[in-house]
């Protein structure tokens, strides 16, 4: 049993103010270092004794990780608070599913503390913002002392709590490409109580001409090892006129493509059954949002 009142793990806390300092620290301490941003995942992990760092390196004091800028593509610094991302999305309806996802996150306090980078780097299959970003086809910019690279979010997640980041690398920014015209998006989740972590979650972005689905991106959360895109379903729907039969067909495909488990939050049976429903509901909402567009 851990101790949820105090941190029993002893570590050094360092808060670099520049990227070079950060990268040097990561290189110096290697696996003994853990990055902390908002800490809403790192601190519970310390309490559960599932991580045991000797150094905690705070990335939130680095100015360039804390900015949001848009040049067609939206660039969100990894250490930008979920609260600030949410405020931004609220003003830009094209990111509706991200707004939905952030709005669904547990507590106001967690939204104030947590960062977008943290939400991705926890690599939780149930991470809400991650799922929304997945269907917005976001990319992440990773920086290490030996250079930087850009990775599609799809390829970023490797498994529960596992990403493609190499030791010494840090997530610097999340890039959300411009959203095509006539695209609507939505995110929905099912929890045990309000603001709970997802039992199942779904994000949809769909481009439509009013009748047919021109293209779509569909993501499902908490039904596999990572937040997952559903390419089979996406293909099935692309170019099709949307009616209940098509949606049933898509839902069948979706239920076959996911790999849910039974855990403390729900059962495999439930997740498979209700994924169909949640997908249809989410798709429907995204669809309605396109229709509302001028």
């Amino acid at each position, binding site marked *: 049993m851990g101790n949820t009142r105090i*941190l*029993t793990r*002893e570590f*050094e806390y360092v808060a670099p103010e520049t990227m070079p300092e950060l990268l040097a620290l990561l290189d110096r301490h290697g696996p003994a270092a853990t990055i902390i941003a908002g800490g809403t995942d790192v601190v519970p992990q310390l309490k559960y004794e599932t991580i045991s760092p000797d150094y905690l390196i705070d990335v939130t004091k680095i100015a360039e990780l804390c900015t949001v800028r848009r040049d067609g593509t939206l660039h969100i610094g990894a250490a930008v608070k979920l609260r600030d991302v949410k405020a931004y999305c609220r003003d830009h309806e094209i990111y509706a599913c991200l707004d939905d996802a952030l709005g669904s996150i547990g507590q*106001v*306090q967690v939204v104030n503390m947590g960062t977008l980078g943290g939400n991705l780097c926890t690599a939780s299959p149930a991470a809400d913002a991650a799922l929304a970003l997945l269907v917005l086809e976001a990319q992440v910019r990773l920086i290490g002392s030996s250079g930087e690279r850009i990775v599609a979010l799809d390829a970023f997640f490797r498994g529960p709590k596992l990403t493609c980041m190499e030791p010494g690398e840090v997530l610097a920014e999340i890039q959300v490409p411009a959203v095509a015209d006539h695209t609507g998006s939505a995110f929905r989740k099912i929890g045990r109580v*309000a603001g709970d972590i997802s039992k199942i979650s779904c994000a949809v972005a769909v481009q439509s001409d009013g009748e047919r689905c021109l293209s779509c991106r569909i993501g499902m959360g908490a039904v596999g090892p990572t937040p997952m895109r559903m390419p089979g379903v996406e293909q099935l729907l692309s170019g099709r006129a949307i009616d209940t039969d098509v949606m049933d067909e898509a839902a069948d495909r979706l239920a076959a493509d996911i790999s849910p488990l039974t855990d403390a939050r729900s059962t495999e049976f439930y997740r498979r059954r209700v994924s169909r429903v949640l997908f249809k509901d989410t798709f429907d909402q995204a669809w309605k949002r396109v229709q509302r567009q001028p």
Partner: protein
Amino acid sequence: MMTKRRVTLTVNGEHVEPLVEANALLVNVLREELQLTGTKYCCGTGQCGGCTVLVNGEPILSCLTLAAAVDGADIVTIEGVAEPDGSLDPIQEAFLDHGAVQCGFCTPGMILMAKDLLAHDPSPSEEQIREHLRGNLCRCTGYHRIVKAIGSCGQ
């Protein structure tokens, strides 16, 4: 042995410089070093909101916050909500008038969340109030009177 560091905080308007270890959590620094026991530990994992304090005006969970990470911050705890002369904030008055307090253990967190909400929106709807409080558990009241009390403060 971890090295201790001095952090500079303004807590309820007062300048303090507690000496803290790198792994010290804000909740424990407030409760033990500064003896502000109005901030509560209840779950320690971010689920209950009992440890809520305002950091630079925003509510956060002090059970998940390293004291070292808020160096330089302005912090308001429940002890800082009433006026310095002891007169109560309208939210505190409303909690008393509406019977929103039972055992009182969730009350500090609830009042700070209400302060935050009303600071951003002086007349929140009931729905907004409930949404804003969703991270603060109360085992006694069923929330009814808490929501009512906060609603009564709206203009």
